[in-house]
């Protein structure tokens, strides 16, 4: 499936990697919900590192949507919350 890392582009990630990515994703969601800065950065870095490791960059001229969109590697907890909060999905 195609995953987008914001401000970095799309990567084609093999389906076998999904279980592992989901685990890392759970850590990240946990960190966002707790509002723990340190945990957030560690979890985001781990998730993005894994996506980069298993994913192959999609050609620039590819014109298709992504199945999953991730924040950029240097995103802050505040930025992520703000993006979510804009549409009122996560209060606070």
């Amino acid at each position, binding site marked *: 499936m195609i995953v*987008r890392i*914001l*401000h970095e*582009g799309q990567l084609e990630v093999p389906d076998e990697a999904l279980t592992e990515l989901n685990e890392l*994703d759970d850590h*990240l*969601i946990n960190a966002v919900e707790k509002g723990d800065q340190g945990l957030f950065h560690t979890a985001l870095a781990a*998730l993005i590192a894994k996506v980069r490791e298993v994913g192959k960059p999609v050609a*620039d*001229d*590819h*014109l*298709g*949507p*992504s*199945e*999953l*969109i*991730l*924040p950029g590697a*240097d995103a802050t907890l505040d*930025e*992520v919350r703000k*993006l*979510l909060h*804009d*549409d009122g*999905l*996560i209060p606070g």
Partner: protein
Amino acid sequence: MKRFSEVMKAKTSKMLDKAEDPRETLDYSYEKQLEMVQKVRRGLADVATSRKRLELQQAQLKASADKLEQQARTAVGVGKEDLAREALNRRAGLQTQLDGLDAQRAQLQGEEDKLTLALQRLQTKVEAFRTKKETIKATYTAAEATSKIGEAVSGISEEMGDVGLAIQRAEDKTATMQARAGAVDELIASGALDDVTSEPGGDIQRQLDALSSGSSVDDELAKMKAELGAGAPAPKEIAAPGVPAEQPAGGEAK
């Protein structure tokens, strides 16, 4: 991050289903893409301008710091430790500012690099979209076109949403830095950074100038004293051979 994905998708797919004829959607989307390319270009130029401004300020502050260091050296040279200390304290303050500016400059450079890549990617996608748009239009049959168009449009919409966020981010950072840069400009303009006339203890340079002219006066005094000192014992030396000196005197008297 499913929710995050959903939010992002919702943000980027609003452009779909604009027109009754899907082919109009293609043209509409393409227009938006060209606008976005322009917007990224402008954003990139703004970030570069801010970065250059920071670099200019860094150079100015660096010059002030160097001047203060030179003043400290001079002060140590003439034995005025208090002045040297004052100059070095000021220089340390400037160094903190300089370090801060450098971190900001690095941040802006990072944004600039990211936007440059984003622009490249977007331009490639826009060009691919234009080709695809013409192909779809040429071979248009309503049934298959809708899904093809949907795929292409939502793909590029997502890219534009991404780039739009990147620009927003860069603009936010640039705005923060311009506010700070304005404050530093005012500080530089006020002369408070390296001209300390307004503060107790007075202008380091003026004091040093006074000291160095003072010390050259001292030098001259010392020289004169030495000369006179050399003259003062001279009578004794003359006095010593003064006894035989009477002989030539007496000789002259002859």
